[in-house]
């Protein structure tokens, strides 16, 4: 989809050789803190910005030259939704849908109901969350090949976040020709919804793969109570932060070395065991730990 993309504003390099590939039919998470370049990438993909260098292709076309033609096949939800003050939400949904080439009436009504959105209110009277819902309904009710969602749940309450997740799950369950690019800084959302994830940092994609691929690169944390004091754990490769207190053991284990460590532990007799799988959060922290400004959105 994108390779070696560069984009700079004056002296700031917003994108610094970004590569991103999204396969047809998958839900792809695009993960990174504020200011990492997610929105810039998306806006290049939409032909709103022109990259300084690199190749970009979208649905088999050039997003800059074939913008309007390609846009009929996709729907976009911006991170910051502003509506026209004197148009109602319903009017905006219909307008955007028609400009895209039509929307599914049944789905429109269903989504309005599920998102609990009043379509008769004027744009200026909606709260941020409700403006976001208007854009979501307009996009999700369109029958398009590609959904580009830029932090789509910002401003939604937890109940509505759940509705959003369900809707995306349903999309994923459908016969797999609908592709979703979901940018987010909310890890649990990406973890719950995405088939593959790309992590962006300072205008570069630093990690990309399926969640299980990525998990492989992380550590599982283990708390165990043994019948005897453990031997030889410290000598095993892939064991970190080992903390032994009598018969209790805490450690972090490289997921690839899990098998060897478990054998060693069970040799000492396991009374109780808690193993925590790696979360995306840890993965994320590994890439951002300590080298970013404090506003990096790590929750």
């Amino acid at each position, binding site marked *: 989809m994108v390779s070696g993309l560069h984009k700079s504003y004056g002296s700031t390099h917003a994108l610094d050789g970004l590569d991103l590939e999204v396969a047809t039919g998958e839900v792809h998470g695009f993960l990174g803190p504020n200011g990492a370049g997610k929105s810039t990438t998306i806006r290049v993909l939409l032909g709103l910005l022109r990259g300084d260098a690199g190749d970009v292709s979208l649905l088999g076309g050039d997003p800059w030259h074939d913008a309007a033609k390609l846009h009929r096949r996709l729907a976009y939800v911006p991170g910051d939704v502003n509506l026209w003050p004197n148009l109602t939400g319903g009017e905006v949904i219909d307008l955007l849908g028609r*400009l895209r080439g039509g929307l599914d009436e049944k789905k429109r009504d269903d989504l309005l109901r599920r998102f609990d959105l009043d379509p008769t209110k004027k744009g200026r009277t909606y709260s941020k969350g409700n403006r976001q819902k208007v854009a979501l309904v307009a996009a999700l009710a369109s029958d398009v090949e590609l959904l580009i969602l830029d932090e789509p749940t910002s401003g939604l309450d937890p109940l509505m976040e759940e509705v959003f997740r369900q809707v995306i799950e349903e999309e994923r369950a459908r016969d797999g020709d609908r592709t979703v690019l979901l940018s987010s800084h909310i890890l649990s959302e990406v973890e719950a919804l995405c088939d593959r994830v790309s992590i962006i940092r300072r205008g570069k994609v630093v990690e990309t793969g399926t969640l299980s691929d990525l998990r492989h690169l992380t550590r599982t944390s283990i708390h165990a109570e043994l019948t005897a004091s453990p031997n030889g754990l410290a000598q095993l490769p892939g064991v970190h932060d080992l903390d032994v207190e009598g018969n209790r053991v805490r450690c972090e284990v490289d997921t690839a070395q899990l098998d060897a460590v478990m054998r060693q532990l069970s040799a000492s007799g396991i009374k109780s065991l808690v193993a925590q799988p790696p979360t995306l959060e840890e993965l994320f922290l590994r890439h951002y730990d300590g080298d970013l400004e404090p506003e990096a959105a790590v929750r």
Partner: protein
Amino acid sequence: MNDFVGTGTLVRLALRRDRILIPIWIVVFVMSAAGSAKASIDLYSDQNALVEAARTSNASPALVSLYGRIFDESSLGEVSLFKLTAFGALLVGLLGGMLVVRHSRSEEESGRLELLSAGVLGRYAALAAALIVSGATAIVLGLLTALSLMGSGLDTKGSFAFGLMWAAAGLAFAGVGAVTAQVTESARAANGLTAIVLGVSYVLRAIGDSSADGSTQWVSWLSPIGWSQQVRAYAGDRWVVLLLPVVFLALMVAAAIALIQRRDVGAGLVRPRPGPPRGAASLRSPLALAWRLHRGSLFAWGFGFLLLGLLVGNIASNVDGFVTSDSAKEMVQKLGGVEGITDAFLATELGIMGLLASAFGIQAALRLRSEETALRAEPLLATGVTRAQWLGSHVVMALFGTAVLILVAGLGSGVSSGASLGNMGRQVPRMLAGAAVQLPAIWLVTGLVVLLFGLAPKLVTGGWALYGLFLLIGQFGELFNLPQWMIDLSPYGHTPRLPGGEFSATPVLWLTAIAAALTLTGFVTFRRRDIG
């Protein structure tokens, strides 16, 4: 006093935000007053020439309805500044009203005020701060103007009367802004309401001034701008009249406070009603959306233009009432008799309406930029809409809207002047033609905005600056003895003066060609640039 807690902080914040804007406005006003005085003093070294100029002006219905009467034809100060009395008061009033809206309603609409209200902030603090900033600006502007006029060599008393008269106009319309800011939820609508009040005030005083037999002179007293004229700076200096705008301000502030007590933060007095849950079947193109966005303001402007046209046409039938003195009669003969002078009056008024219609065009074209920066262009451009279609939708509204406005004004003035002169069949087409020839210059100015939008979007509000420059060149170019090439820069100077004048196609075609070139370049450059 709890209701006013935090006013000081807000005043400092407002002054910090406007630390460039306010001084620039003040300098522009002070310089135009001083420059106008200086140029006139040089021009009228001879007392007879002064009186002659004053008489000519008072005998011209176009000038009287536009600027007002000269009360003392032998007063150097008044003759120098009469063009800036009512007109200047209008602009100072605009500044005063907009500053109040900017620091009260705009802040509330954007939600910034809510952020501050969560801290310690009294209920009236925002309005009080806005009024203090606006009032102080008006007073400083007035005093500096007075000093600069004295510096140009005019007498002290008159100079202070003039400066304070301007300040008082600023105060009066600050009061209007305080009320409109409570009535509507959007700053745009509040500014629109203020502008309507300003327009009505200006028209009321024009009616009063144009009264040939004095029977409708009292109408001027209904208008805050009429009060500014009645201060009669350099022609008697009636200080008492200055109390009128001050009392008016107090009443307006009392009304605004009463309104604040009845509403919630963020709400206006006019509550928005729910609208249709579905988009009308016609709402399916960028042009349909642009029509929705512009139609409200186009209807309001169109109504104003129709009234203005009817009024102007009506005044035209009284033209011979102005011609009373012998010297004026002689002059009228030179200018081609009563019909000649009526036509000249109507042509001037159509020119003014062309200037006003351009303001609509600029504002409509600037909508492009505000849609872009408010991130409302992005979702549209992410659909099947091409950039040219989106840009075109607003450009069409600007071009079409200005055409509607000027033609409505032409029609109105044609009908009313035709009815009173008894030759409707001739007058209507003449006035429509006179209105239509204004369009190329109007479209050229709109084209400049489109070009800036494509080429240098951050500078797009420079469109107003260019417009202001053209206005100044037109109003004062000859007075300031500017070189001809500079005077020629203003597109309005090339518009044929119809009815009555000679029509020549060359300048009209040139203006149209330049307007088209500017607009097209705007399209091409917009297609190549980044959005946002």
